[in-house]
């Protein structure tokens, strides 16, 4: 952002000067996608997608249904393969190719939160958060209770459930369940959080809580969020990527995308002229 001061009082942001923000300064990159193509059988879902994501930034991915947003997100922790898809191109996490990494370890480092809250139905609140630790063999350190508490606090849920940790994970409200899933993802100490429409099934109050949470979490994590809600993308993200028909049309500072996008397709989409 460019701020110009005149006579010490007037501040002006020159909108067109936002534009090269993504490439103009030295970046501490967490994730880099380089010419990624993704397929379901013969159907190509992503075409030559390249995107650089900075550490401790929130990146929003927007675009109409079927544009490849979720597919891209799932490529980042190799969940796309689990769904039977294939991909080529390179994805680097801290400069190292994710395909050279064990997928289980990768998914510990790159956690995911889904559209619909999916607590394990037979487990208590406590066990839901501890599940990842046990699955990843991280339960032996004897600090489970500590980690569960820390994770629930980070997910802004601790105060609401601290007296009912043994209750079933499904017994709490939808918004609380989603934060429980966030706590479960945080418990295994990830570096990146992928969020696929995390608030689309929630009403405005829990949605606002999730958005506040994203703002807090970016201090410690790099977050990529897929959302249909453009106001949400505008509120929570530092950068926004607009996807259309499997291609990345524009990727820039969120302020630039929502005040003066460079590409007409982006302009038409964010203003609701199409999509």
């Amino acid at each position, binding site marked *: 952002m460019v701020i110009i001061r005149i006579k010490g009082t007037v501040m002006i942001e*020159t909108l067109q000067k936002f534009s090269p923000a993504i490439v103009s300064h030295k970046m501490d990159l967490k994730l880099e996608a380089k010419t990624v193509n993704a397929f379901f059988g013969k159907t190509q879902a992503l075409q030559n997608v390249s995107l650089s994501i900075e550490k401790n930034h929130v990146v929003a991915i927007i675009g109409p249904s079927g544009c490849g947003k979720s597919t891209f997100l799932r490529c980042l922790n190799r969940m796309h393969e689990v769904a039977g898809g294939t991909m080529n191109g390179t994805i680097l996490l801290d400069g190292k190719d994710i395909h050279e990494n064990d997928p289980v370890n990768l998914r510990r480092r790159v956690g995911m939160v889904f559209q619909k809250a999916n607590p394990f139905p037979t487990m208590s609140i406590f066990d839901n958060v501890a599940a990842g630790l046990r699955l990843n063999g991280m339960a032996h350190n004897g600090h489970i209770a500590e980690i569960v508490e820390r994770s629930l606090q980070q997910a802004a849920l601790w105060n609401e459930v601290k007296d009912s940790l043994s209750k079933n994970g499904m017994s709490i409200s939808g918004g609380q369940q989603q934060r429980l899933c966030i706590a479960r993802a945080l418990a295994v100490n990830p570096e990146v959080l992928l969020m696929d429409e995390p608030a689309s099934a929630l009403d405005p109050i829990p949605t606002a809580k999730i958005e506040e949470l994203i703002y807090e979490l970016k201090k410690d994590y790099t977050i990529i969020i897929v959302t249909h809600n453009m106001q949400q993308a505008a509120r929570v993200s530092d950068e926004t990527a607009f996807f259309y028909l499997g291609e990345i049309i524009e990727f820039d500072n969120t302020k630039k995308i929502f005040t003066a996008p460079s590409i007409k397709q982006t302009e038409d989409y964010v203003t609701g002229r199409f999509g």
Partner: protein
Amino acid sequence: MERHFQHELEGVKTNLIKMGSAVEENINNAVIAILERNEVIAAKVIESDKRIDTLEIEIDNAIIDMLALQQPVASDLRFIIAAQKINNDLERIGDHAVNLAESALTLQKSKKLESLLEIPQMVSATKLMLKYALDSFILLDPKMARIVLETDDQIDEWNRSMTTNVIELLKNDKQLIEPGLALIRISQNLERVADMATNIAEEVIFHIQALVVKHHAEEI
């Protein structure tokens, strides 16, 4: 699919164009009243300002509704921000037209001046600036808006020399104090109209090109 919101945006633009025409007409009539010492036209300007004030409130309300209900972004957002400022500028120009008309009445009642000094050329240039600013808004033409920005300095210069010239005039004939002061007021009001036309042109550039050009921001 055509957006309902598009109609609302166009409604605001149509109202601003209406307001622009009303303001331009009032400025044109006010300067006719000055140049031709015509009190009937001056009175008409003063009377018709009410219509401009009504339009200002109508446009303000429409803008508040759109901001609250549509959460505009990108070019829609820039249009609404520009429209709000242009609305304010046009209303102020309307007030300056009233001031000019009142000065025309003063001139009409006092001793006749042999010359109106720089006023005729200030009138021509200011009218043209206003016309170009409004046309650039209607036609979405940033080049036309830039011409307005370039003309403003000349108006400022004439306004400054008016003061010096009126003082010279008064040194020779004390009976000219009243019309002389009216001339200074006319000059100052024309200078403000030119400033407002410049503001409108700046907002047009912001709306179309997403560039902030006020206070020479581009050069900083």
